[in-house]
């Protein structure tokens, strides 16, 4: 055991000191921050631009129904208070601008409005016809915007203004307001036991997002770290240090040490990412809801998955003559960990369905699948236990097979063995 820890320590020390490892570890959060910074900045910029550019819309009131004195009140009703949007004050104001930010201009006749349109003073104009009370129809003449822009600017405003004008003075003030102001909805989410679910929309996102982020981090971490494991084994094989090592420790000790060292490096990477990304997120994003059980399961599968893949990688890695050859062989294993990502939609639409469960029972796809499932839904505990048990069992199996491959592969130079030969070795060894 002492030798295992010696090998593990060296492997760890060596891996975390690699330039590529440091760049990936520190670069990943910066990359995310940069990416979100750029896209967030772009959103803010477009909001500011849209605020600066207030559409002017013409109104031709042929019916004579609209009462100018009511307009300010109606306009005010369209700016939502920040609390209702779930967004901070500024963003809410910007979101409301689409309606409240429309500036209206009255015209005496459709002709004069049309002239203003041709002079590009207005984007378009509404006509409330003389027979509005009978027909209930309003016309809009407007230049189409792009897909993303509002194609009926000021429509909500005009609708409320019309309603308010029609009932003003004919109904008591309060009743009138209830009529033209649509009701607000006070929605109270409940948990299954009837207690209020306070997490809110962001809570939903985090409870889904945390395991999902784990799954992505797992894959990135696995790919970088296992590449280093492969590289390490291939290097030792190339420079024959492996012979000195194997004259000091057994194949099993060497393999176990390497995998543990790799696992520790992967956890270090994860730890750095958690400190750099998740912790600030908890502080700066309100309403984040971390479920510790979820975190624990995600972590468990992270470690188990890492050890299993590491063992497999080391075994496969020892077969090639150099790093590139080894990498090709090991590619198959890495790719299979990504399979659940391609099946994201079918898995998430039925997180406890057959496909999701089958993938949880296949060792290579289990870690990522489980992480995605626990984010989406409450997964039965025996499902998680079974998946973890299968993962443990396959880890032990791979440890034995990997050690055999290692024993056979490390001192083989020259021709790369075929799949048939490998199978024969495994039987013989």
């Amino acid at each position: 055991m002492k030798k295992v820890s010696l090998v593990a320590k060296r492997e760890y020390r060596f891996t975390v000191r690699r330039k590529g490892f440091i760049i990936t570890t520190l670069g990943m959060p910066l990359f995310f921050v940069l990416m979100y910074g750029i896209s967030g900045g772009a959103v803010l910029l477009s909001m500011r631009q849209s605020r600066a550019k207030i559409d002017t819309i013409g109104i031709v009131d042929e019916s004579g129904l609209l009462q100018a004195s009511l307009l300010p009140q109606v306009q005010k009703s369209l700016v939502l208070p920040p609390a209702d949007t779930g967004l901070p004050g500024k963003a809410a104001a910007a979101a409301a601008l689409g309606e409240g930010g429309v500036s209206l201009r009255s015209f005496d006749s459709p002709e004069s409005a049309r002239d203003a349109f041709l002079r590009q003073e207005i984007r378009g104009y509404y006509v409330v016809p003389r027979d509005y009370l009978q027909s209930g129809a309003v016309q809009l003449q407007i230049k189409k915007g792009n897909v993303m822009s509002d194609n009926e600017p000021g429509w909500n405003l005009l609708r409320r203004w019309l309603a308010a004008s029609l009932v003003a003075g004919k109904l008591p003030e309060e009743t009138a307001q209830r009529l033209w102001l649509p009701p607000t909805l006070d929605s109270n989410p409940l948990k299954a036991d009837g207690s209020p679910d306070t997490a809110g929309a962001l809570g939903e996102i985090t409870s889904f997002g945390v395991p999902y982020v784990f799954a992505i981090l797992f894959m990135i971490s696995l790919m970088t770290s296992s590449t280093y494991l492969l590289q390490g084994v291939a290097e030792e094989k190339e420079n024959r240090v492996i012979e000195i090592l194997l004259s000091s420790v057994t194949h099993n000790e060497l393999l176990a040490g390497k995998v543990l060292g790799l696992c520790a490096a992967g956890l270090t990477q994860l730890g750095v990412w958690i400190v750099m990304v998740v912790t600030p997120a908890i502080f700066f994003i309100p309403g984040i809801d971390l479920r510790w059980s979820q975190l624990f399961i995600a972590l468990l599968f992270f470690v188990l998955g890492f050890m299993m893949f590491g063992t497999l990688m080391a075994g496969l890695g020892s077969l090639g003559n150099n790093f590139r050859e080894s990498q090709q062989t090991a590619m198959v294993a890495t790719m299979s960990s990504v399979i659940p990502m391609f099946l994201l939609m079918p898995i998430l639409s039925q997180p406890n369905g057959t496909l999701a469960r089958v993938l949880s029972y296949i060792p290579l796809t289990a870690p990522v699948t489980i992480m995605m499932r626990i984010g989406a839904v409450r997964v039965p505990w025996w499902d998680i236990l079974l998946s973890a048990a299968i993962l443990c069992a396959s880890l032990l199996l791979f440890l034995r097979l990997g050690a055999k491959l290692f024993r056979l592969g490390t001192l083989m130079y020259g021709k790369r063995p075929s799949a048939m030969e490998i199978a024969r070795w495994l039987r013989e060894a």
Partner: protein
Amino acid sequence: MNTMNKIVLENVHKRFDSTVAVADVSFNVPQGGVFGLLGPNGAGKTTLIRMMLDIIRPDSGTILYDGHQLTPGDKDRITYLPEERGLYKKEKVRDLLDYFAQLKGMPLAEARRRSLLYLVKMEMADVLDKKVETLSKGNQQKIQIAAALVSDPEVIVLDEPFAGLDPLNVRLTKEILTEERKAGKTILLSTHQMNQVEELCDHLFMIDQGVRVLYGPVSEILDRYSEPALLLECSTIPESIPEIDRVVVEGKQQKVYPKAGVAPAMVLRALIDRGVQIDRFQKAATPLEEIFVRVVQERRREAQS
């Protein structure tokens, strides 16, 4: 069981696919001293060494270490310098030596002390904090030789330790190996340099195409393959000396064949008594290199017929 044997190989056999690398080989490596493992390229030397270190396992036969089957714990007591050299290039010399010694079960403090000791012996104390990749090839090799000695092993397996070293470093390495041998270590030396074997080895084992061709104490083997003659550089040897059968002149040298049962000392006395001036007097030993070539060629001829 002879307790004087450090390593015993009995009917060891190893096959790789269709080729037999080691065919039913048996020999003993005595405790203490230098044991030469010889053979042409691809003869099976490295395979033998790897089996003795339990890096690979024989298909059949047994390898005993101190009278018992090799256990993982025994790996602490044997070190190995592989023929094809390589080190972790990015590591500091100090870390590398410490790591290899620790893998042999030596505590860190002790490993540090002895690393320094052997670097001083190797006249390389100044490289302790340098990275391996900054060292010359020869110096990297010296580091590797040091790495094989730091952990204070009982058995030291060296595969071509002198290849690539300049004469000064060859001498230095030999001195260090002689020291180790005096300290009671068993040194297994695999090499093609026959003069080194003659100079250093007490016993040798020669293998060709997986088969044993020579085995025994070096002096015995040299005797066995040498003519019963004496080589002299001297003034003219008078005719009809009763102890001498015949004399053959070979350039400056004269080859003297004593009569059966006459010891070299008796020949020497007879010559001195007759006033012969002697500059050099030695047994006409066939160089090991010649024995090597002859034995390998003979065996291959036999194998073909």
